[in-house]
């Protein structure tokens, strides 16, 4: 029942919000949502306590036959790979709900969709059946599309449609792979049993794996399948961006590990060198593209493209250390990108712009956003992999685990890590250093130097979630053994499993 609670709580919450009679004010809906998400967080923590880190495989399993005819079972389980992601989901959805303060329409639907996404994501992470995973994977799509297309920015229709099309293709590819598996092997075993040569010839494995890779590659996203992401981010509201970057992209990397690496270990080993190169390209491309951005949010979005590439690199290398690094990177990226988007959201709300060409001097103590600026410096440094914060240990594990297998790809990815510092330093130095201003320079420098800027103050409550995320980033950076304690056994088993076969 424990794992089912991860589904019941958010889905019941969705139902409660949708069926709640009468017109409800935003504040009340928000509080109810926060309460439900707190319960979900508590449930996730209870599961963490119940979780036995020394067991390698799925645990706390639940099984109910559902549609045995098509191989769809209600089969849940959790291991060291999915548990951290469930926790991140609980935490970041809560953050998203907390930072939702000023939506202008249909708050009921908004919060219901938020809960629905969180439940679907939970379901995807704990599904122990391919089709069940797919159902949840698709279930998360529509509410997110709504969140972008209804509560998004000026160009939301374009972004939302693009998101929908890309993700729909992603879903088709994944479903195609799963169905193909059934067709090619001639059985409807949709459990997570590795597909080895004795069941399916290598050619078939590779075709299926490629479909999986493309499908999840869109979601992660990997270059050149990333085009939907910057648009989605720039049009989405801040809480949605937090959720999208912090949680939903992890579905892609999780799928990659679970349904690529774990399901097709032999084919994976075949393709691994290519994947490593793909990872390096993705990292470099994302970083270089980020350098050229002037919209803060687009810059952060491209940095996501770059940083998710590390996970692919780690998965390609497929060593215990690198896979542990992948888990760390997923968690670290979840926290860091959530923080970055949150802070960019604060800047946007106060100044009305995210344009690095016009924003200057936001650190100004009395008139600017000094605390936001301070947290932003922390966040970008964490993202650039500065030690003492979550990004460093993750990147170190990824690189350390991958360098022996793919030295060139690893070194190139490290260059990407260096480039992260470039664009984020550009961001911080442009937007936060110098004299406070939020308008483009006119022809008259004296007039510019006298322009007074009246920004609304950032209330302390607006920064509490950011402070909490920052604290989590530092805590994970200084005390990483907690996470490795949870994940190491499962991850090692995952790496060993494929080592055994290859």
């Amino acid at each position, binding site marked *: 029942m424990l794992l089912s609670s991860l589904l019941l709580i958010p889905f019941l919450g969705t139902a409660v919000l949708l069926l709640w009679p009468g017109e409800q004010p935003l504040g009340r809906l928000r509080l109810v949502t926060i309460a439900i998400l707190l319960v979900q967080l508590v449930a996730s923590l209870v599961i963490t306590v119940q979780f036995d880190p020394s067991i390698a495989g799925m645990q706390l399993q639940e099984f109910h036959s559902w549609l045995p005819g098509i191989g769809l079972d209600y089969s849940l389980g959790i291991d060291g790979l999915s548990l951290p992601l469930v926790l991140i989901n609980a935490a970041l959805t809560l953050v998203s709900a907390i930072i939702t303060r000023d939506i202008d329409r249909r708050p009921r639907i908004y919060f219901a969709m938020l809960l629905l996404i969180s439940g679907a994501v939970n379901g995807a992470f704990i599904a122990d059946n391919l089709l069940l995973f797919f159902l949840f994977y698709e279930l998360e799509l529509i509410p997110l599309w709504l969140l972008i297309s209804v509560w998004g920015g000026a160009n939301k229709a374009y972004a939302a449609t693009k998101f929908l099309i890309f993700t729909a293709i992603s879903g088709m590819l994944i479903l195609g792979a799963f169905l193909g598996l059934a067709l090619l092997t001639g059985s409807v075993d949709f459990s997570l049993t590795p597909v080895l040569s004795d069941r399916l010839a290598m050619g078939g494995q590779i075709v299926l794996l490629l479909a999986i890779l493309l499908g999840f590659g869109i979601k992660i996203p990997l270059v050149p399948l990333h085009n939907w992401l910057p648009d989605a981010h720039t049009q989405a509201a801040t809480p949605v961006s937090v959720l999208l970057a912090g949680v939903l992209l992890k579905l892609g990397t999780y799928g990659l590990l679970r349904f690529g690496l774990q399901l097709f270990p032999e084919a994976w080993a075949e393709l691994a060198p290519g994947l490593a190169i793909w990872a390096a390209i993705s990292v470099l491309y994302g970083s270089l593209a980020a350098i050229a951005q002037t919209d803060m949010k687009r810059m952060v979005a491209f940095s996501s493209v770059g940083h998710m590439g590390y996970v692919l690199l780690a998965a390609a290398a497929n060593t215990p250390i690198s896979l542990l690094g992948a888990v760390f990177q997923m968690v670290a990226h979840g926290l860091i990108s959530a923080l970055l988007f949150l802070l960019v959201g604060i800047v946007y709300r106060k100044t009305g712009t995210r344009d690095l060409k016009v924003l200057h001097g936001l650190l100004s103590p*009395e008139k600017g956003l000094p605390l936001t600026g301070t947290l932003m410096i922390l966040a970008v440094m964490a993202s650039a992999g500065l030690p003492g914060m979550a990004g460093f240990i993750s990147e170190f594990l990824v690189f350390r685990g991958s360098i022996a297998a793919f030295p060139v790809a690893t070194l190139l990815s490290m260059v990407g890590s260096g480039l992260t510092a470039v664009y984020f330093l550009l961001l911080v130095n442009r937007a936060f250093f110098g*004299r406070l201003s939020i308008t483009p320079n006119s022809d008259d420098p004296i007039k510019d130097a006298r322009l007074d800027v009246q920004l609304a103050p950032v209330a302390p409550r607006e920064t509490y979630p950011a402070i909490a995320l920052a604290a989590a980033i530092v805590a994970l950076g200084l005390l990483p053994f907690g996470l490795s304690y949870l994940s190491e056994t499962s991850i090692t088993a995952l790496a060993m499993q494929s080592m055994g076969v290859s």
Partner: protein
Amino acid sequence: MPVIPAELVHSNPGLDTEQIIAKLLGGETLLSDTPDHLIEVVDVLESYGEVLDAYSKNLIYQGEHQFLNPFPIFKYLDGDLSPAKIWRHLNHDRINFEYAEYCMKGMLWHATGGMDAYFDSEAFNENCKAIIAAKRRRDPLLAILHPLFPDFLSELIRNAATTHALGQFWRVMSDLFIDLAKAERAGTVRSIPDVVDFIKQGLVAAAANPIEYGVTIGGQQFWILPPEAKLTFLVDVAVPYVEAVFLRGMPFLGTVSYNAQAQQISPDQATFTYGALYADPLPTMGAGVPPSLLMQDMYRHLPQRLHEWYWERTRGEGDVREKICRSFQKSMFCVTNAAISGTMPHALDTTDPEEQEANRAYAASWAGRLVIGRTDCLAA
């Protein structure tokens, strides 16, 4: 191009040279006369008066009791070494006397006016010699250092003299500003012209006050700024103070690069425009902006009425010190205004064309300097 909400940025038009001359010659105040301005100027000057009171007492204490003390550890305690006072000092629950010293250093460094001229005189030199001789008899370290660094002690004596003189100057200004607040409460000052006139009367009344400074070493009295030097309040201290602090100022490390190759700072101090009338209030309380100390001190002595007035505006308490800085700049324009009209060569209502011409030339010389100042703060 992004769309910036118009209400977030704001700029006032400044005054041009002709407008300034017209105002000065027409007896109009530079700062426009509005009820809000009256509150801002009177109240901020009241808090400034209270701060200046503390500055003045401390500078005079330093001049008289910390003279040539190599380790003036307790120089800010005004001689009160009670544990409570020391604790408040350690906890930085105190006036930032560092800013008073900063202004003093500015005056000394810019080296203008009658007192500075006296520093280079033979009479001053003789006084220094006597003081140094007395000091060397008691202090072996100074006895060794003086022959090696012959100007060391006389430079420190100039420093002490400036400290004391600034203390005397601020004594007068402090009383004047607090009296202004009383007058406004009593209803005798009701407008910005009244304020300017009040300050002008105060300055004129104190103009001829003597500035004197002497120290006692081993029971023996020595003059540093003797009565014979005939240094007076207005010409020898107030004017160089205005020159050094209101107009020239010193470049802030937090906003201007000292890098010699970048050449951001003029080699000619006379062309400096870093003073209070030119300063940008926006970076107040930022790093490397020394007047932040003054704003903090005034914040701690803010009259209730002005504090409430601030609460209703912009970020309320959040940017209160920046607003103090803006109000302070306005009030400094009023003080400058009073000083200019007090030193006008002839009466404004003169009908003698030559006198009119002299007045106009005087006003024009000021307008030339003020026009590049922050006159944008003067509009209603």
